């Protein structure tokens, strides 16, 4: 008897419907074969499915079983077809009614004892289904619960599912989760006010958040660069419904959502170690998986000790920084992942890290320092608008005469949201959203400088020997500073402040 079961294959962030056709034939030598461009993990489904059915006290028919995964030309990998194959066999051997499989999608990896394991990509399955019922492993089921219009059934093990389909004991479907409520109800993980001192670095973070600028922090170890970076997601505008879904999709495909979690509610913060490979950074693998740049999508990518990253890795980030997405081409597939992130980088001032430290001596020679600084490639530096020094904080000085009161992340976030709103209004039909995305033509159109500011800028170009790129970068930063003050025009003081964050010579 022949049975068709519906399932889903994910290639990158795209989903395709898969028909799992199972034939249990009375004639022929007993056996179990899977065809349809099945990967290694799918081939092995034979053993998992057979053992799981037997261990659940169900019958594995001693007949000739043929499984076809259609369409045949689409590569398939992973354990997610275990469940549809098992259901096909059970239906074809009449242990469950085959009618009950219609209009439902089955997706999930089986364990040898018949229970279901958490499986990657359940959110994408839910989004693909649009209507009808979706049977997925209980641990991953919450991912799909944010999709409206479908019935999500969390399956614990094969027996439960067989009872449900035989109308013996029903599995309770998950109630729909409201994304908006999930997203609005988020607290800040790291508050900027917790960082002692470093007022200028904090200000640079605010500007970076408001205008979507990338930021480079220079400073010796232990001055709080990492703490500052961690606080960045908390001052970015809260995620919207669409944004939350977009990031969650990437995490779902990567299998990085915690069991039971339904949605990424905070902006992601990724800080890969400098031992990372280019494939780890931008994504890769036979079936290309998202890399760090995509996992940081709509959030923050923090590169600590950026000068230690291999040049090839930094170079590979040029496309994502420029285009907000990354294309990965492999033999099996050509996949595009979104990768629109804020880049925060930290760099030691010299190889030993103690140049300019008030108490510790730096052991590096001039030449070593020059060589070290040259390791960060120009094209990447060109894409970083803000540079700031993060000096050593002398605690005793902090305690004394501190007239200055730091703002907390919530207050800052309101400022940032305001500045972003002015930008959206300005760029209405231009297809860009933040000041950092402005091209030269946008700068000319939207950043009119009056005589005084122009003069100031010309003096600065002369004094600091700025390049044409540096010139445009400055104007963009000044525009963001003006937006933070809700000022229509760029005033001289805005430009003067922007000059504080120019690239170090």
């Amino acid at each position: 008897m022949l049975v068709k079961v519906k399932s889903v294959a994910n290639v990158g962030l795209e989903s395709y419907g898969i028909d799992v056709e199972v034939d249990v034939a009375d004639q022929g030598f007993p056996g179990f074969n899977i065809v349809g461009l099945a990967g290694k993990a799918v081939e092995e489904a034979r053993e998992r499915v057979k053992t799981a059915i037997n261990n659940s006290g169900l019958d594995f028919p001693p007949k000739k079983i043929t499984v076809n995964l259609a369409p045949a030309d689409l590569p398939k990998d992973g354990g997610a077809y275990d469940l549809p194959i098992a259901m096909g066999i059970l239906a074809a051997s009449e242990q469950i009614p085959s009618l009950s499989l219609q209009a439902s999608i089955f997706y999930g990896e089986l364990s040898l004892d018949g229970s279901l394991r958490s499986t990657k990509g359940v959110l994408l399955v839910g989004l693909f289904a649009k209507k009808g019922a979706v049977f997925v492993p209980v641990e991953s089921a919450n991912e799909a619960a944010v999709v409206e219009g479908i019935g999500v059934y969390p399956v614990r093990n094969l027996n439960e599912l067989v009872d449900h389909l035989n109308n013996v004991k029903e599995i309770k479907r998950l109630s729909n989760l409201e994304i908006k409520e999930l997203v609005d109800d988020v607290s800040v993980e790291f508050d900027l006010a917790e960082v002692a001192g470093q007022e200028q670095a904090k200000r640079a973070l605010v500007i970076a958040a408001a205008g979507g600028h990338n930021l480079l922090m220079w400073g010796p170890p232990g001055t709080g660069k990492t703490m500052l970076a961690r606080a960045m997601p908390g001052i970015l505008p809260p995620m919207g419904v669409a944004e939350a879904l977009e990031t969650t999709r990437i995490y779902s495909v990567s299998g990085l959502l915690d069991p039971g979690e339904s949605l990424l509610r905070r902006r992601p913060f990724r800080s890969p170690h400098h031992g990372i490979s280019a494939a780890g950074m931008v994504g890769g693998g036979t079936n290309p998986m998202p890399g760090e740049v995509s996992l940081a999508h709509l959030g923050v990518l923090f590169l600590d000790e950026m000068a230690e990253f291999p040049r090839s890795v930094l170079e590979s980030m040029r496309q994502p920084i420029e285009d907000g997405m990354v294309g990965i081409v492999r033999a099996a597939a050509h996949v595009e992942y979104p990768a629109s992130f804020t880049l925060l980088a930290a760099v030691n001032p010299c190889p030993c890290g103690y140049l300019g430290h008030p108490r510790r001596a730096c052991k590096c020679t001039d030449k070593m320092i020059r060589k070290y600084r040259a390791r960060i490639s120009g094209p990447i530096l060109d894409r970083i608008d803000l540079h700031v020094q993060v000096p050593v904080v002398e605690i005793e000085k902090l305690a004394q005469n501190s007239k200055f009161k730091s703002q907390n992340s919530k207050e800052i976030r309101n400022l940032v949201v305001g500045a972003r709103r002015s930008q959206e209004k300005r760029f209405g039909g231009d297809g860009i959203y933040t000041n950092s995305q402005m091209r030269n033509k946008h700068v000319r159109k939207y950043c009119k400088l009056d005589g005084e500011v122009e003069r100031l800028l010309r003096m600065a170009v002369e004094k600091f020997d700025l390049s044409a790129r540096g010139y445009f970068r400055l104007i963009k930063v000044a525009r963001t500073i003006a937006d933070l003050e809700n000022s229509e025009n760029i005033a001289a003081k805005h430009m003067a402040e922007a000059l504080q964050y120019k690239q170090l010579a």
Partner: protein
Amino acid sequence: MSVGKFSGWKGELYYKGEWQEALFEKCVAVVGSRRMTSYGERVIEKLVPQLVNEGWTIVSGFMYGVDQAAHRTCLEVGGKTIAVLGWGINETLDASDQILGDQIIKSGGLLISEWEDQKPAQWTFPARNKIVAAMAERIYVIEAASKSGALITAEMGRNLGKEIWAVPGPVTSAVSAGTNWLIKTGRAKMWVPGESISRGTKTGDLYILLQNETLTVDELVRKTGRSVQEVGSELTMMILSGEAAEEEGKYYLVE
């Protein structure tokens, strides 16, 4: 390879550039540590232009740190400078040294060495110092640790009866230990800058704070209680107007 001689030195010296007797008439040595601090750099920015104005040729040892800063500052203000190398005249220089060397020659200065082909070694530098000491009428030690080549130069100069000057530095700084010791033991006169032109009109709070010490933006923010954005943009204006300068994140007044 060209050779030349100057009075006060027995042997012949190899050189690159154009040998002019006038160069050697009024020489002053500016020497110091390889590990120069921003303090040392600022001293050089004050001292060297003054010496050039008075018509001195600046002699130094071409090592990175104080030596090269002295050469460079001299070139910037249009002076003539002689670099006495601690290695053979034909040794290849690394790229940035080569650029500086070319500039020295182009501006009418000289690169000088005792040797034709000689790799730098422990003993070549003291030998080089001897030439520096012999050439200069006066020797200024900018920054020097307690066991520094610059102290050797000063000692050689003293034995030759030259005038030795040392720049006092913070007693906590290792690279000022040598110069302070020279002053303390009477081996050198203490150099302090002459009358500086005060700008009585400046009364801003940043200006007043910076009169006493060098400060970072964060420190200025804490001391004034003003916002980072205000302080930052005011500092930029001070830099552009030439009132202040910034080095490794610290601000100071320029006189």
